[in-house]
């Protein structure tokens, strides 16, 4: 398994040999920013296409198939369409907060995006409290949504934003607690550390019952956190037009759209990191030949592949379950998921303390 930090180190040495240190650092920062932006945009475009194709498959349709081969260029066309739409100036809004909201939503998803472990030695932000940082920054997004709904000065957006706020803060609790369960199991909060711990066996296998419970809760809470699937009542189109982003037009709306798809990737990425070994290949103890074959697949492919497979499951939810009502939604979180989660944490600690894991 090759270490990609060799490449970054080489670039660093190369830059240092031709320019002073501070300039090299600046160039590297700009390069990181550009790379982040490119991956962010390309993944969002891919996800829009992917979701539309998957939805079409579930409904026995073809999905986008006109623009480019198999409709592959459809999301590029959509992006340009969004760019050339007019950004309408509204007269009844709170201008400053209205303009601020998309920034907050995008910054939140960009920061959590940077924490993900993309591959061996390919990770931008690597705090020793990585996963904690991720939870902290991803909750900035809810501020953006609340501001968007409030500043629009529209009844639909206000109701949409409040529903979204209540839903996101409630389910953040479940996300926090299932992450906590896995942090207790890993014994570290550093993203690299968590991935390294899963070298021999992914946590979902080595942590058996408590890890599986934590995973199921994480998946439910993650779906709710991204306002998707059966939990899409903040933007329930039959009741609230489009929820909190009703008043946004053109590219201004595009930011919410972009962040929503990226959040889907981030939620699946974090699930991959915590339960499916991040960029670690599938290893079965004792099967040395098999493990060696798996090592040949690059780590980036492992990470993105696992994340996309999990996203597929989340998209699948959307077409399987009917939309919940707000009281059912909050009951599910506070009366079922939260007590189960607290119990599961105790179970996990017992498993750790008495060494009952693999």
């Amino acid at each position, binding site marked *: 398994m090759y270490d990609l930090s060799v490449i970054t180190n080489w670039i660093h040495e190369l830059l240092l040999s031709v320019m002073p240190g501070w300039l090299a650092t600046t160039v590297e920062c700009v390069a990181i*920013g550009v790379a982040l932006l490119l991956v962010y945009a390309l993944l969002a475009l891919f996800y829009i296409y992917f979701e539309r194709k998957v939805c079409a498959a579930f409904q026995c349709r073809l999905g986008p198939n006109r623009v480019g081969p198999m409709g592959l260029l459809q999301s590029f066309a959509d992006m340009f369409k969004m760019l050339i739409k007019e950004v309408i100036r509204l007269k009844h809004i709170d201008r400053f907060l209205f303009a601020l909201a998309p920034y907050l939503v995008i910054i939140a998803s960009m920061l959590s995006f940077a924490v993900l472990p993309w591959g061996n030695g390919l990770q931008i932000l690597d705090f020793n409290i990585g996963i904690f940082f991720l939870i902290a920054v991803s909750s900035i997004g809810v501020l953006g949504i609340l501001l968007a709904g409030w500043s629009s000065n529209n009844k639909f957006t206000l109701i949409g934003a409040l529903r979204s706020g209540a839903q996101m803060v409630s389910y953040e609790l479940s996300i926090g607690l299932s992450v906590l369960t896995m942090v207790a199991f890993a014994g570290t909060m550093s993203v690299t550390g968590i991935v390294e711990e899963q070298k021999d066996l992914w946590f979902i296998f080595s942590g058996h019952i408590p890890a599986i419970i934590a995973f199921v809760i994480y998946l439910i809470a993650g779906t709710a956190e991204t306002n998707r699937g059966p939990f899409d009542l903040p933007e329930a189109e039959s009741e609230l037009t489009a929820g909190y982003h009703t008043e946004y037009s053109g590219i201004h709306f595009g930011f919410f759209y972009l962040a929503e798809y990226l959040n889907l990737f981030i939620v699946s990425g974090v699930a991959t990191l915590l339960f499916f070994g991040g960029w670690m290949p599938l290893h079965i103890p004792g099967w040395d030949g098999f493990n060696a074959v798996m090592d040949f697949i690059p780590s980036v492919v492992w990470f993105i592949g696992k994340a996309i497979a999990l996203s597929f499951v989340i998209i699948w939810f959307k077409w399987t379950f009917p939309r919940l009502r707000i009281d059912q939604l909050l009951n599910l979180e506070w009366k079922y998921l939260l007590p189960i989660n607290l119990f599961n944490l105790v179970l996990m600690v017992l498993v750790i303390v008495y060494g009952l894991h693999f």
Partner: protein
Amino acid sequence: MVSLEIFGIQNSTLAVVAALTGVALVAAALWVAGLIAPRSFNPQKGEAYECGIPTRGESMSQFKVGYYLYAILFLMFDVETVFLFPWAVRVKELGVDGLVGIAVFFGILVLGLVYAWRKGALEWK
């Protein structure tokens, strides 16, 4: 354990870079849209997108208190998670002692949830 700082740049700097990238994305896209998007002026376009008829009253008004109640409950449990994280990292070394220690904290917390439940704070009325 591997400690990786890409290009040897500190993580806090990189966090600022990532945040600035987000700002740059929004600002650049808005700028491009401002250059190529058409503009047309019509007083009707500035109206709220509601039902077609003129909007009545302010929308930044009172809302259901239930949302607020859930936010307060969330604060309680979220702060609790912050306290639990340092313990979770050390739980392997602490062993049974750590388990007993946190059980007291945990018990108080569960009592809080039970109280909120019995008080009917979790009912959506």
